[in-house]
């Protein structure tokens, strides 16, 4: 498996809104975070949803975002973060 990103890389989640089965939450699209780790590679759920095999397996990353950059007017701590697992094809270098 060739992974495009490494831990510490800054990435932007693509602002894309196709129909279908999407595992990238709506609220995180367009936001910028940092690769926390590579989780492995897994068949693409967007393809599995239609009964296809989802291969080649897609790298899946845990991406860390600052909560105050995800939610407008966030009232929690300045250091709060949220980790979301996102497939590589949803990420661009930032």
């Amino acid at each position, binding site marked *: 498996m060739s992974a495009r990103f490494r831990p510490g890389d800054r990435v932007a989640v693509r602002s894309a*809104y196709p129909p279908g*089965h*999407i595992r990238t*939450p*709506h*609220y995180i699209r367009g936001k910028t975070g940092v690769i926390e780790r590579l989780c492995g590679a897994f068949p693409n759920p967007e393809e599995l*949803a239609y009964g296809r095999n989802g291969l080649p397996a897609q790298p899946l990353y845990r991406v860390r975002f600052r909560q105050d950059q995800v939610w407008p007017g966030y009232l929690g701590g300045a250091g709060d973060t949220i980790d979301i697992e996102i497939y590589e094809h949803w990420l661009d270098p930032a």
Partner: protein
Amino acid sequence: MRGYHDIGGLPLGEVERSQHDHAFWEKRVDAMLVLLSRKGLITTDELRLGIETLGADAYERLSYYERWIASKSRALVARGVITTDELGRRMAAAARADAA
């Protein structure tokens, strides 16, 4: 477009945290998915796609496991595991048995 199921961050009020028991039929629906998955006849993603395309009205109206049944039935017909005619006949027979 934002799916009606993709509600992260929307204001929806208090979260109901109380536990509840599952009815026997709900456990059967759950167990059926495990068996179908093990046999390679359905994936979690097919189940999810079916739930995410029920339509917003049905999604709101149906309970959690009713959504599963609706989605699973569609996926199994799409894959050719069962036919619509088989499903219709078995549902009619079950309804007759319930009424008797």
